[in-house]
Protein backbone atom coordinates (compact mmCIF):
# COMPACT_ATOMS: atom_id res chain seq x y z
CA UNK A 1 0.00 0.00 0.00
CA UNK A 2 2.67 2.59 0.87
CA UNK A 3 4.52 1.78 -2.29
CA UNK A 4 1.52 3.04 -4.25
CA UNK A 5 2.06 6.55 -2.89
CA UNK A 6 5.70 6.50 -3.82
CA UNK A 7 4.90 5.23 -7.28
CA UNK A 8 2.38 8.01 -7.66
CA UNK A 9 4.92 10.59 -6.72
CA UNK A 10 7.29 9.23 -9.30
CA UNK A 11 4.83 9.61 -12.12
CA UNK A 12 5.85 13.02 -13.43
CA UNK A 13 2.72 13.96 -15.24
CA UNK A 14 0.48 12.96 -12.40
CA UNK A 15 2.57 14.96 -10.00
CA UNK A 16 2.26 17.95 -12.32
CA UNK A 17 -1.46 17.45 -12.42
CA UNK A 18 -1.65 17.28 -8.68
CA UNK A 19 0.34 20.46 -8.29
CA UNK A 20 -1.84 22.38 -10.73
CA UNK A 21 -4.89 21.13 -8.93
CA UNK A 22 -3.57 22.26 -5.59
CA UNK A 23 -2.87 25.67 -7.02
CA UNK A 24 -6.40 25.95 -8.37
CA UNK A 25 -7.94 24.77 -5.13
CA UNK A 26 -5.80 27.21 -3.18
CA UNK A 27 -6.83 29.97 -5.55
CA UNK A 28 -10.45 29.13 -4.96
CA UNK A 29 -10.11 28.88 -1.20
CA UNK A 30 -8.18 32.07 -0.80
CA UNK A 31 -10.07 34.03 -3.43
CA UNK A 32 -11.21 36.75 -1.01
CA UNK A 33 -7.57 37.47 -0.18
CA UNK A 34 -6.11 36.97 -3.60
CA UNK A 35 -8.63 38.86 -5.69
CA UNK A 36 -7.52 42.43 -6.33
CA UNK A 37 -11.08 43.68 -6.75
CA UNK A 38 -14.62 42.86 -5.85
CA UNK A 39 -15.72 40.51 -8.62
CA UNK A 40 -19.08 42.16 -8.90
CA UNK A 41 -17.88 45.73 -8.95
CA UNK A 42 -18.87 47.17 -12.28
CA UNK A 43 -17.23 49.96 -14.24
CA UNK A 44 -19.30 50.15 -17.40
CA UNK A 45 -17.19 52.93 -18.87
CA UNK A 46 -14.09 50.80 -18.66
CA UNK A 47 -15.52 47.75 -20.32
CA UNK A 48 -13.36 45.40 -22.33
CA UNK A 49 -10.07 46.95 -21.36
CA UNK A 50 -7.16 44.61 -21.82
CA UNK A 51 -4.74 43.43 -19.11
CA UNK A 52 -3.13 46.23 -17.15
CA UNK A 53 -1.29 46.63 -13.89
CA UNK A 54 -4.48 47.31 -12.04
CA UNK A 55 -6.43 44.62 -13.76
CA UNK A 56 -3.95 41.82 -14.46
CA UNK A 57 -6.27 39.82 -16.66
CA UNK A 58 -8.25 42.74 -18.03
CA UNK A 59 -11.88 43.69 -17.65
CA UNK A 60 -15.07 42.12 -18.92
CA UNK A 61 -17.79 43.99 -20.86
CA UNK A 62 -19.12 45.46 -17.64
CA UNK A 63 -15.67 46.52 -16.51
CA UNK A 64 -15.42 43.89 -13.80
CA UNK A 65 -12.01 42.47 -12.99
CA UNK A 66 -11.58 39.24 -14.85
CA UNK A 67 -8.91 37.91 -12.51
CA UNK A 68 -11.17 38.35 -9.51
CA UNK A 69 -14.08 36.79 -11.31
CA UNK A 70 -11.96 33.85 -12.33
CA UNK A 71 -10.79 33.38 -8.76
CA UNK A 72 -14.30 33.45 -7.41
CA UNK A 73 -15.45 31.44 -10.37
CA UNK A 74 -12.98 28.77 -9.38
CA UNK A 75 -15.00 28.27 -6.24
CA UNK A 76 -18.12 27.62 -8.22
CA UNK A 77 -16.63 25.47 -10.93
CA UNK A 78 -14.45 23.36 -8.69
CA UNK A 79 -17.09 22.83 -6.04
CA UNK A 80 -19.74 21.93 -8.57
CA UNK A 81 -17.23 19.55 -10.09
CA UNK A 82 -16.34 17.88 -6.79
CA UNK A 83 -19.83 17.72 -5.37
CA UNK A 84 -21.39 16.50 -8.57
CA UNK A 85 -18.59 13.92 -8.69
CA UNK A 86 -19.48 12.77 -5.19
CA UNK A 87 -23.15 12.46 -6.03
CA UNK A 88 -22.53 10.43 -9.16
CA UNK A 89 -20.06 8.25 -7.28
CA UNK A 90 -22.57 7.58 -4.52
CA UNK A 91 -25.39 6.77 -6.87
CA UNK A 92 -23.16 4.78 -9.18
CA UNK A 93 -21.69 2.70 -6.37
CA UNK A 94 -25.08 1.87 -4.92
CA UNK A 95 -26.54 0.92 -8.28
CA UNK A 96 -23.47 -0.97 -9.37
CA UNK A 97 -23.29 -2.88 -6.10
CA UNK A 98 -26.92 -3.90 -6.26
CA UNK A 99 -26.56 -5.05 -9.82
CA UNK A 100 -23.27 -6.81 -9.30
CA UNK A 101 -23.94 -8.56 -6.07
CA UNK A 102 -27.51 -9.62 -6.46
CA UNK A 103 -27.68 -10.19 -10.16
CA UNK A 104 -30.92 -11.56 -11.43
CA UNK A 105 -33.78 -9.14 -11.95
CA UNK A 106 -32.11 -6.46 -9.82
CA UNK A 107 -29.22 -6.31 -12.25
CA UNK A 108 -31.68 -6.33 -15.13
CA UNK A 109 -33.54 -3.30 -13.81
CA UNK A 110 -30.40 -1.36 -12.98
CA UNK A 111 -28.71 -2.06 -16.27
CA UNK A 112 -31.74 -1.15 -18.33
CA UNK A 113 -32.05 2.06 -16.34
CA UNK A 114 -28.42 2.80 -17.05
CA UNK A 115 -28.97 2.16 -20.70
CA UNK A 116 -31.85 4.61 -20.77
CA UNK A 117 -29.63 7.24 -19.24
CA UNK A 118 -26.90 6.49 -21.68
CA UNK A 119 -29.05 6.57 -24.77
CA UNK A 120 -30.33 10.03 -24.09
CA UNK A 121 -27.57 12.55 -24.84
CA UNK A 122 -26.39 13.57 -21.44
CA UNK A 123 -26.12 17.23 -22.17
CA UNK A 124 -29.62 17.52 -23.53
CA UNK A 125 -30.89 15.68 -20.51
CA UNK A 126 -29.15 18.09 -18.21
CA UNK A 127 -30.40 21.13 -20.07
CA UNK A 128 -33.93 19.83 -20.03
CA UNK A 129 -33.78 19.07 -16.33
CA UNK A 130 -32.30 22.45 -15.50
CA UNK A 131 -34.84 24.21 -17.63
CA UNK A 132 -37.65 22.48 -15.74
CA UNK A 133 -36.26 22.95 -12.27
CA UNK A 134 -34.72 26.33 -12.82
CA UNK A 135 -31.02 27.05 -12.82
CA UNK A 136 -29.16 27.57 -9.57
CA UNK A 137 -26.00 26.36 -7.94
CA UNK A 138 -27.81 23.48 -6.24
CA UNK A 139 -29.93 22.39 -9.14
CA UNK A 140 -26.97 22.36 -11.53
CA UNK A 141 -24.88 20.41 -9.09
CA UNK A 142 -27.50 17.80 -8.35
CA UNK A 143 -28.55 17.34 -11.94
CA UNK A 144 -25.01 16.89 -13.23
CA UNK A 145 -24.38 14.48 -10.41
CA UNK A 146 -27.44 12.40 -11.14
CA UNK A 147 -26.73 12.19 -14.84
CA UNK A 148 -23.24 10.75 -14.61
CA UNK A 149 -23.65 7.65 -12.49
CA UNK A 150 -23.88 5.13 -15.29
CA UNK A 151 -20.15 4.72 -15.92
CA UNK A 152 -19.50 3.81 -12.30
CA UNK A 153 -22.39 1.42 -12.16
CA UNK A 154 -21.32 -0.54 -15.18
CA UNK A 155 -17.68 -0.76 -14.22
CA UNK A 156 -18.48 -1.64 -10.64
CA UNK A 157 -20.93 -4.30 -11.65
CA UNK A 158 -18.30 -5.96 -13.83
CA UNK A 159 -15.70 -5.79 -11.08
CA UNK A 160 -18.06 -7.19 -8.50
CA UNK A 161 -19.10 -10.02 -10.74
CA UNK A 162 -15.53 -11.08 -11.20
CA UNK A 163 -14.50 -10.62 -7.57
CA UNK A 164 -17.53 -12.57 -6.46
CA UNK A 165 -16.06 -15.67 -8.07
CA UNK A 166 -12.85 -15.44 -6.16
CA UNK A 167 -12.22 -18.15 -3.60
CA UNK A 168 -11.83 -15.73 -0.74
CA UNK A 169 -15.41 -14.62 -1.20
CA UNK A 170 -16.54 -18.24 -1.15
CA UNK A 171 -14.46 -18.73 1.94
CA UNK A 172 -16.26 -15.84 3.60
CA UNK A 173 -19.60 -17.39 2.79
CA UNK A 174 -18.28 -20.65 4.15
CA UNK A 175 -17.56 -19.20 7.55
CA UNK A 176 -20.94 -17.59 7.66
CA UNK A 177 -20.39 -13.94 6.74
CA UNK A 178 -23.59 -12.23 5.68
CA UNK A 179 -24.05 -10.92 2.14
CA UNK A 180 -23.86 -7.38 3.39
CA UNK A 181 -20.62 -7.98 5.20
CA UNK A 182 -19.07 -9.67 2.21
CA UNK A 183 -20.09 -6.82 -0.06
CA UNK A 184 -18.83 -4.05 2.15
CA UNK A 185 -15.79 -5.71 3.66
CA UNK A 186 -14.45 -7.91 0.95
CA UNK A 187 -15.83 -7.08 -2.44
CA UNK A 188 -15.93 -3.29 -2.53
CA UNK A 189 -12.41 -2.66 -1.21
CA UNK A 190 -11.11 -4.83 -4.00
CA UNK A 191 -12.95 -2.80 -6.61
CA UNK A 192 -11.49 0.49 -5.54
CA UNK A 193 -8.76 0.92 -8.12
CA UNK A 194 -10.80 1.47 -11.26
CA UNK A 195 -13.23 3.58 -9.27
CA UNK A 196 -10.59 5.96 -8.02
CA UNK A 197 -9.41 6.58 -11.53
CA UNK A 198 -12.95 7.14 -12.71
CA UNK A 199 -13.59 9.69 -10.01
CA UNK A 200 -10.87 12.01 -11.21
CA UNK A 201 -12.00 11.75 -14.79
CA UNK A 202 -15.59 12.20 -13.77
CA UNK A 203 -14.88 15.37 -11.83
CA UNK A 204 -13.10 16.78 -14.86
CA UNK A 205 -16.12 16.00 -16.94
CA UNK A 206 -18.44 17.59 -14.37
CA UNK A 207 -16.44 20.79 -14.50
CA UNK A 208 -16.75 20.81 -18.26
CA UNK A 209 -20.47 20.19 -18.07
CA UNK A 210 -21.00 22.99 -15.64
CA UNK A 211 -18.94 25.33 -17.77
CA UNK A 212 -20.93 24.37 -20.81
CA UNK A 213 -24.20 24.92 -19.02
CA UNK A 214 -23.14 28.29 -17.78
CA UNK A 215 -21.80 29.17 -21.17
CA UNK A 216 -25.24 28.58 -22.60
CA UNK A 217 -26.87 30.52 -19.83
CA UNK A 218 -28.48 27.53 -18.19
CA UNK A 219 -26.10 27.27 -15.32
CA UNK A 220 -24.85 29.65 -12.73
CA UNK A 221 -26.66 32.92 -13.09
CA UNK A 222 -25.40 36.46 -12.95
CA UNK A 223 -23.93 38.13 -11.06
CA UNK A 224 -22.25 34.98 -9.71
CA UNK A 225 -19.25 34.09 -11.79
CA UNK A 226 -18.44 30.75 -13.19
CA UNK A 227 -15.76 30.09 -15.72
CA UNK A 228 -18.33 29.14 -18.26
CA UNK A 229 -20.37 32.27 -17.87
CA UNK A 230 -17.33 34.52 -18.13
CA UNK A 231 -16.40 32.66 -21.27
CA UNK A 232 -19.88 33.17 -22.58
CA UNK A 233 -19.68 36.90 -22.18
CA UNK A 234 -16.43 37.00 -24.04
CA UNK A 235 -17.85 35.09 -26.95
CA UNK A 236 -19.23 38.04 -28.87
CA UNK A 237 -16.13 40.09 -28.34
CA UNK A 238 -13.60 37.48 -29.30
CA UNK A 239 -12.12 39.50 -32.14
CA UNK A 240 -11.82 42.81 -30.35
CA UNK A 241 -11.20 41.68 -26.81
CA UNK A 242 -9.96 38.09 -26.84
CA UNK A 243 -8.79 38.25 -23.23
CA UNK A 244 -12.33 38.00 -21.90
CA UNK A 245 -12.86 34.55 -23.34
CA UNK A 246 -9.28 33.31 -23.33
CA UNK A 247 -8.49 33.44 -19.63
CA UNK A 248 -11.51 31.56 -18.32
CA UNK A 249 -11.03 29.10 -21.17
CA UNK A 250 -7.47 28.51 -20.01
CA UNK A 251 -8.67 28.02 -16.49
CA UNK A 252 -11.14 25.35 -17.57
CA UNK A 253 -8.51 23.67 -19.67
CA UNK A 254 -6.00 23.63 -16.84
CA UNK A 255 -8.44 22.14 -14.39
CA UNK A 256 -9.59 19.41 -16.75
CA UNK A 257 -6.05 18.62 -17.82
CA UNK A 258 -4.88 18.43 -14.22
CA UNK A 259 -7.62 15.98 -13.30
CA UNK A 260 -6.92 13.85 -16.32
CA UNK A 261 -3.22 13.67 -15.62
CA UNK A 262 -3.87 12.81 -12.02
CA UNK A 263 -6.26 10.12 -13.13
CA UNK A 264 -3.66 8.65 -15.48
CA UNK A 265 -1.11 8.61 -12.73
CA UNK A 266 -3.50 6.95 -10.32
CA UNK A 267 -4.36 4.29 -12.83
CA UNK A 268 -0.73 3.44 -13.40
CA UNK A 269 0.08 3.54 -9.71
CA UNK A 270 -2.73 1.16 -8.90
CA UNK A 271 -1.98 -1.25 -11.71
CA UNK A 272 -1.43 -4.56 -9.95
CA UNK A 273 0.84 -5.82 -12.68
CA UNK A 274 3.37 -3.21 -11.79
CA UNK A 275 3.38 -4.14 -8.12
CA UNK A 276 6.57 -5.76 -6.99
CA UNK A 277 6.09 -8.77 -4.81
CA UNK A 278 7.64 -9.19 -1.44
CA UNK A 279 7.55 -5.62 -0.26
Amino acid at each position, binding site marked *: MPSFMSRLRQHRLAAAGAVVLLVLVAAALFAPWLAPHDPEEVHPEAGLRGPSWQYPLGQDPLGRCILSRILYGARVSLSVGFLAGVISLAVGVVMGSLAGYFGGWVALVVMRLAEVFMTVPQFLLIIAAVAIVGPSFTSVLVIIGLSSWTGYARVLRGEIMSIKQQ*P*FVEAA*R*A*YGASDWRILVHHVLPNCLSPLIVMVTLNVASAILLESSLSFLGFGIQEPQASWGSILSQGRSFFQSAPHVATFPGLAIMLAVLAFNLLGDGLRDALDPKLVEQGE
Partner: protein
Amino acid sequence: MSAANQIAITVKDLEKVFPLRRGLFSRSQGGVRAVDKVSFELKVGETLALVGESGCGKTTVARMLAGLEQPTSGSVILNGAEVDFSSRQAPRILRQEAQMVFQDPYATLDPRMTVGSSVEEPLIVRHYTGDRRERVRELFAAVSLDEEMINRYPHQFSGGQRQRIGIARALASEPKILLCDEPTSALDVSVQGQVLNLLKELQRERSISYLFISHNLSVVWHISQQVAVMYLGKIVEMGSRESVFLETAHPYTKALLAASPKVALGQKQERIMLSGEVPGPLNPPSGCRFHTRCPQASQVCREVEPQLSDVGGGHQVACHLP
Protein backbone atom coordinates in the same frame (compact mmCIF):
# COMPACT_ATOMS: atom_id res chain seq x y z
CA MET B 1 -9.80 -42.00 23.31
CA SER B 2 -13.42 -42.73 23.64
CA ALA B 3 -14.05 -40.52 20.65
CA ALA B 4 -12.59 -43.17 18.41
CA ASN B 5 -15.11 -44.98 16.26
CA GLN B 6 -17.71 -42.34 16.83
CA ILE B 7 -19.28 -40.95 13.74
CA ALA B 8 -18.74 -37.31 12.94
CA ILE B 9 -21.11 -37.05 10.02
CA THR B 10 -23.29 -39.45 8.10
CA VAL B 11 -24.37 -38.77 4.58
CA LYS B 12 -27.15 -40.80 3.03
CA ASP B 13 -28.28 -40.75 -0.58
CA LEU B 14 -27.10 -37.23 -1.06
CA GLU B 15 -28.11 -35.83 -4.39
CA LYS B 16 -27.54 -32.61 -6.27
CA VAL B 17 -29.16 -31.86 -9.57
CA PHE B 18 -28.33 -28.58 -11.28
CA PRO B 19 -31.37 -27.57 -13.28
CA LEU B 20 -30.95 -26.58 -16.88
CA ARG B 21 -32.65 -23.43 -17.82
CA ARG B 22 -33.70 -22.64 -21.32
CA GLY B 23 -34.40 -18.98 -21.74
CA LEU B 24 -35.64 -16.72 -19.05
CA PHE B 25 -39.11 -17.93 -18.46
CA SER B 26 -39.38 -21.56 -19.48
CA ARG B 27 -39.33 -24.52 -17.17
CA SER B 28 -36.14 -26.36 -16.52
CA GLN B 29 -35.72 -29.39 -18.71
CA GLY B 30 -33.93 -32.10 -16.83
CA GLY B 31 -30.66 -31.25 -15.26
CA VAL B 32 -27.13 -32.20 -14.50
CA ARG B 33 -26.92 -34.89 -11.85
CA ALA B 34 -23.70 -33.73 -10.32
CA VAL B 35 -24.07 -35.94 -7.27
CA ASP B 36 -26.23 -39.03 -7.50
CA LYS B 37 -27.15 -40.79 -4.25
CA VAL B 38 -23.88 -40.66 -2.44
CA SER B 39 -23.66 -42.22 1.03
CA PHE B 40 -20.77 -42.45 3.44
CA GLU B 41 -19.75 -42.08 7.05
CA LEU B 42 -16.96 -40.01 8.39
CA LYS B 43 -15.58 -41.08 11.74
CA VAL B 44 -14.25 -38.71 14.33
CA GLY B 45 -10.54 -38.05 13.89
CA GLU B 46 -10.37 -39.88 10.58
CA THR B 47 -9.81 -38.85 7.01
CA LEU B 48 -12.00 -39.96 4.14
CA ALA B 49 -10.54 -39.15 0.75
CA LEU B 50 -12.76 -38.45 -2.23
CA VAL B 51 -10.97 -39.33 -5.40
CA GLY B 52 -12.07 -38.89 -8.97
CA GLU B 53 -11.68 -36.93 -12.12
CA SER B 54 -13.47 -33.91 -13.47
CA GLY B 55 -17.20 -34.09 -13.34
CA CYS B 56 -17.31 -36.78 -10.69
CA GLY B 57 -19.01 -34.54 -8.16
CA LYS B 58 -16.48 -34.61 -5.35
CA THR B 59 -16.27 -30.85 -5.04
CA THR B 60 -20.04 -30.56 -5.08
CA VAL B 61 -20.30 -33.02 -2.20
CA ALA B 62 -17.89 -30.91 -0.19
CA ARG B 63 -19.73 -27.73 -1.01
CA MET B 64 -23.01 -29.23 0.10
CA LEU B 65 -21.50 -30.17 3.44
CA ALA B 66 -20.06 -26.68 3.78
CA GLY B 67 -23.47 -25.11 3.29
CA LEU B 68 -22.48 -23.50 0.01
CA GLU B 69 -24.89 -25.56 -2.08
CA GLN B 70 -28.23 -26.96 -1.14
CA PRO B 71 -28.77 -30.68 -1.76
CA THR B 72 -31.65 -31.64 -3.98
CA SER B 73 -32.37 -34.60 -1.76
CA GLY B 74 -30.75 -36.91 0.74
CA SER B 75 -29.93 -36.59 4.39
CA VAL B 76 -27.00 -35.46 6.44
CA ILE B 77 -26.78 -36.44 10.09
CA LEU B 78 -24.59 -34.23 12.21
CA ASN B 79 -24.22 -34.45 15.97
CA GLY B 80 -26.82 -37.15 16.04
CA ALA B 81 -29.46 -34.92 14.48
CA GLU B 82 -30.58 -34.76 10.92
CA VAL B 83 -29.98 -31.46 9.18
CA ASP B 84 -33.21 -30.04 7.88
CA PHE B 85 -32.33 -28.58 4.51
CA SER B 86 -35.63 -26.90 4.02
CA SER B 87 -34.91 -24.62 6.95
CA ARG B 88 -32.90 -21.48 6.43
CA GLN B 89 -30.82 -22.38 9.44
CA ALA B 90 -29.33 -25.36 7.69
CA PRO B 91 -26.30 -23.64 6.23
CA ARG B 92 -25.49 -22.10 9.59
CA ILE B 93 -25.63 -25.41 11.37
CA LEU B 94 -23.36 -26.98 8.81
CA ARG B 95 -20.91 -24.13 8.88
CA GLN B 96 -20.66 -24.41 12.62
CA GLU B 97 -19.26 -27.88 12.34
CA ALA B 98 -17.76 -28.09 8.88
CA GLN B 99 -15.34 -25.60 7.42
CA MET B 100 -13.70 -25.59 4.06
CA VAL B 101 -10.07 -25.26 3.05
CA PHE B 102 -9.77 -24.16 -0.55
CA GLN B 103 -7.44 -25.14 -3.31
CA ASP B 104 -5.89 -21.95 -4.53
CA PRO B 105 -3.73 -20.40 -1.85
CA TYR B 106 -3.26 -17.32 -3.97
CA ALA B 107 -6.91 -16.43 -4.08
CA THR B 108 -8.22 -17.81 -0.82
CA LEU B 109 -7.33 -14.73 1.21
CA ASP B 110 -8.70 -11.24 0.65
CA PRO B 111 -5.74 -9.35 -0.79
CA ARG B 112 -6.83 -6.13 0.86
CA MET B 113 -6.97 -7.41 4.41
CA THR B 114 -4.12 -8.35 6.68
CA VAL B 115 -3.90 -12.06 7.25
CA GLY B 116 -4.71 -11.51 10.89
CA SER B 117 -7.96 -9.84 9.96
CA SER B 118 -8.78 -12.66 7.58
CA VAL B 119 -8.34 -15.20 10.34
CA GLU B 120 -10.28 -13.02 12.75
CA GLU B 121 -13.29 -12.65 10.45
CA PRO B 122 -15.02 -15.91 11.38
CA LEU B 123 -14.74 -14.95 15.03
CA ILE B 124 -16.41 -11.62 14.37
CA VAL B 125 -19.12 -13.17 12.28
CA ARG B 126 -19.89 -15.70 14.97
CA HIS B 127 -19.86 -13.17 17.77
CA TYR B 128 -17.02 -14.89 19.54
CA THR B 129 -17.17 -13.92 23.18
CA GLY B 130 -13.54 -14.32 24.10
CA ASP B 131 -10.53 -12.20 23.29
CA ARG B 132 -10.30 -12.31 19.52
CA ARG B 133 -6.73 -11.14 19.30
CA GLU B 134 -5.65 -13.85 21.64
CA ARG B 135 -7.48 -16.50 19.68
CA VAL B 136 -5.89 -15.31 16.43
CA ARG B 137 -2.50 -15.64 18.07
CA GLU B 138 -3.37 -19.15 19.20
CA LEU B 139 -4.44 -20.09 15.71
CA PHE B 140 -1.29 -18.75 14.15
CA ALA B 141 0.76 -20.72 16.63
CA ALA B 142 -1.27 -23.82 15.86
CA VAL B 143 -0.23 -23.60 12.22
CA SER B 144 3.37 -22.76 13.12
CA LEU B 145 3.38 -19.18 11.93
CA ASP B 146 5.10 -16.40 13.82
CA GLU B 147 2.98 -13.95 15.75
CA GLU B 148 4.64 -11.03 14.03
CA MET B 149 3.18 -12.12 10.72
CA ILE B 150 -0.32 -11.33 11.83
CA ASN B 151 -0.29 -7.83 10.42
CA ARG B 152 1.15 -8.64 7.03
CA TYR B 153 -0.66 -8.87 3.75
CA PRO B 154 -1.23 -12.08 1.77
CA HIS B 155 1.09 -11.16 -1.07
CA GLN B 156 3.99 -11.17 1.36
CA PHE B 157 3.63 -14.88 1.98
CA SER B 158 4.52 -17.97 -0.01
CA GLY B 159 1.90 -20.40 -1.26
CA GLY B 160 2.52 -22.87 1.53
CA GLN B 161 2.22 -20.20 4.17
CA ARG B 162 -0.99 -18.88 2.68
CA GLN B 163 -2.46 -22.30 2.75
CA ARG B 164 -1.59 -22.59 6.41
CA ILE B 165 -3.29 -19.27 7.03
CA GLY B 166 -6.33 -20.63 5.25
CA ILE B 167 -6.28 -23.60 7.59
CA ALA B 168 -5.97 -21.31 10.59
CA ARG B 169 -9.01 -19.44 9.39
CA ALA B 170 -10.95 -22.63 8.93
CA LEU B 171 -10.08 -23.69 12.46
CA ALA B 172 -11.23 -20.41 13.95
CA SER B 173 -14.75 -21.59 14.50
CA GLU B 174 -13.58 -24.89 16.01
CA PRO B 175 -15.25 -27.12 13.47
CA LYS B 176 -15.40 -30.88 13.85
CA ILE B 177 -14.86 -31.42 10.17
CA LEU B 178 -12.54 -29.85 7.66
CA LEU B 179 -13.47 -30.15 4.02
CA CYS B 180 -10.19 -29.95 2.18
CA ASP B 181 -10.57 -29.33 -1.52
CA GLU B 182 -7.24 -30.14 -3.18
CA PRO B 183 -5.32 -28.22 -0.53
CA THR B 184 -1.89 -29.09 -1.84
CA SER B 185 -2.48 -29.24 -5.57
CA ALA B 186 -1.34 -25.70 -6.20
CA LEU B 187 1.75 -26.02 -4.05
CA ASP B 188 5.23 -27.00 -5.04
CA VAL B 189 6.17 -30.56 -4.24
CA SER B 190 8.88 -29.55 -1.83
CA VAL B 191 6.39 -27.55 0.20
CA GLN B 192 3.30 -29.71 0.23
CA GLY B 193 4.81 -31.76 3.02
CA GLN B 194 4.44 -28.81 5.37
CA VAL B 195 0.73 -28.56 4.82
CA LEU B 196 0.14 -32.29 4.97
CA ASN B 197 2.15 -32.64 8.16
CA LEU B 198 0.21 -29.80 9.70
CA LEU B 199 -3.10 -31.39 8.79
CA LYS B 200 -2.07 -34.69 10.29
CA GLU B 201 -0.89 -33.06 13.47
CA LEU B 202 -4.06 -31.06 13.87
CA GLN B 203 -6.10 -34.17 13.36
CA ARG B 204 -4.21 -35.98 16.07
CA GLU B 205 -4.42 -33.12 18.53
CA ARG B 206 -7.99 -32.06 17.99
CA SER B 207 -9.68 -35.17 16.65
CA ILE B 208 -10.87 -33.33 13.59
CA SER B 209 -12.25 -35.35 10.71
CA TYR B 210 -11.24 -34.56 7.19
CA LEU B 211 -13.05 -34.98 3.94
CA PHE B 212 -10.02 -34.81 1.69
CA ILE B 213 -10.38 -34.22 -2.02
CA SER B 214 -7.37 -34.80 -4.19
CA HIS B 215 -6.41 -36.18 -7.54
CA ASN B 216 -2.93 -37.01 -6.35
CA LEU B 217 -3.08 -40.61 -5.23
CA SER B 218 0.21 -40.58 -3.38
CA VAL B 219 -1.02 -37.76 -1.23
CA VAL B 220 -4.29 -39.61 -0.72
CA TRP B 221 -2.44 -42.70 0.40
CA HIS B 222 -0.41 -40.67 2.84
CA ILE B 223 -3.18 -38.86 4.58
CA SER B 224 -6.33 -40.90 4.53
CA GLN B 225 -7.66 -43.94 6.29
CA GLN B 226 -10.73 -44.39 4.13
CA VAL B 227 -11.00 -43.78 0.41
CA ALA B 228 -14.03 -43.34 -1.84
CA VAL B 229 -13.67 -43.30 -5.61
CA MET B 230 -16.27 -41.32 -7.54
CA TYR B 231 -17.23 -41.39 -11.18
CA LEU B 232 -19.88 -39.22 -12.77
CA GLY B 233 -21.64 -38.48 -9.54
CA LYS B 234 -21.60 -41.92 -7.98
CA ILE B 235 -19.29 -43.73 -5.63
CA VAL B 236 -17.93 -46.75 -7.45
CA GLU B 237 -15.58 -48.07 -4.80
CA MET B 238 -15.12 -47.33 -1.14
CA GLY B 239 -13.21 -48.82 1.71
CA SER B 240 -10.09 -48.58 3.78
CA ARG B 241 -7.05 -47.19 2.07
CA GLU B 242 -5.38 -50.57 1.99
CA SER B 243 -8.34 -52.34 0.46
CA VAL B 244 -8.89 -49.72 -2.25
CA PHE B 245 -5.25 -49.31 -3.17
CA LEU B 246 -4.00 -52.82 -2.69
CA GLU B 247 -7.06 -54.99 -3.28
CA THR B 248 -8.55 -52.81 -5.97
CA ALA B 249 -11.78 -54.23 -7.26
CA HIS B 250 -13.30 -51.68 -9.63
CA PRO B 251 -11.86 -51.35 -13.15
CA TYR B 252 -11.97 -47.56 -12.96
CA THR B 253 -9.97 -47.48 -9.77
CA LYS B 254 -7.46 -49.82 -11.33
CA ALA B 255 -7.09 -47.53 -14.31
CA LEU B 256 -6.71 -44.49 -12.05
CA LEU B 257 -4.00 -46.13 -10.03
CA ALA B 258 -2.19 -47.31 -13.13
CA ALA B 259 -2.36 -43.90 -14.75
CA SER B 260 -0.91 -42.00 -11.82
CA PRO B 261 2.69 -41.20 -12.49
CA LYS B 262 5.04 -42.65 -9.94
CA VAL B 263 8.69 -42.39 -9.36
CA ALA B 264 9.38 -46.08 -9.42
CA LEU B 265 12.41 -48.19 -9.87
CA GLY B 266 12.84 -50.16 -13.00
CA GLN B 267 10.07 -50.97 -15.39
CA LYS B 268 7.04 -48.88 -16.10
CA GLN B 269 3.80 -49.94 -14.61
CA GLU B 270 1.41 -51.95 -16.68
CA ARG B 271 -0.79 -49.36 -18.29
CA ILE B 272 -4.50 -49.80 -18.29
CA MET B 273 -5.46 -47.50 -21.10
CA LEU B 274 -8.97 -46.20 -20.96
CA SER B 275 -10.55 -45.14 -24.20
CA GLY B 276 -12.19 -41.79 -24.59
CA GLU B 277 -12.82 -39.28 -21.87
CA VAL B 278 -15.24 -38.82 -19.05
CA PRO B 279 -18.65 -38.41 -20.71
CA GLY B 280 -20.47 -35.18 -20.11
CA PRO B 281 -22.76 -35.32 -17.09
CA LEU B 282 -25.77 -34.21 -19.08
CA ASN B 283 -26.49 -37.61 -20.56
CA PRO B 284 -24.75 -40.21 -18.50
CA PRO B 285 -24.39 -43.62 -20.10
CA SER B 286 -27.04 -46.20 -19.43
CA GLY B 287 -26.46 -49.03 -17.03
CA CYS B 288 -23.07 -48.76 -15.43
CA ARG B 289 -21.83 -45.26 -16.11
CA PHE B 290 -18.36 -46.48 -16.67
CA HIS B 291 -19.19 -49.06 -19.30
CA THR B 292 -18.29 -46.80 -22.25
CA ARG B 293 -14.65 -46.77 -21.20
CA CYS B 294 -14.35 -50.01 -19.33
CA PRO B 295 -12.06 -52.58 -20.93
CA GLN B 296 -14.13 -55.37 -19.41
CA ALA B 297 -17.64 -54.14 -20.13
CA SER B 298 -20.23 -56.75 -20.93
CA GLN B 299 -23.90 -56.81 -21.85
CA VAL B 300 -25.22 -56.53 -18.34
CA CYS B 301 -22.99 -53.52 -17.74
CA ARG B 302 -24.70 -51.68 -20.55
CA GLU B 303 -28.15 -52.34 -19.22
CA VAL B 304 -28.19 -52.55 -15.47
CA GLU B 305 -26.70 -50.06 -13.10
CA PRO B 306 -24.66 -51.84 -10.45
CA GLN B 307 -25.19 -51.06 -6.78
CA LEU B 308 -22.56 -50.79 -4.12
CA SER B 309 -22.11 -54.11 -2.41
CA ASP B 310 -19.82 -55.23 0.32
CA VAL B 311 -17.01 -57.52 -0.78
CA GLY B 312 -15.58 -58.06 2.65
CA GLY B 313 -14.49 -55.99 5.61
CA GLY B 314 -16.38 -52.86 4.72
CA HIS B 315 -14.91 -52.69 1.22
CA GLN B 316 -17.72 -51.74 -1.17
CA VAL B 317 -17.70 -51.93 -4.96
CA ALA B 318 -20.33 -51.13 -7.57
CA CYS B 319 -19.53 -53.46 -10.42
CA HIS B 320 -21.10 -56.47 -12.09
CA LEU B 321 -17.86 -58.27 -12.68
CA PRO B 322 -16.84 -60.86 -10.13
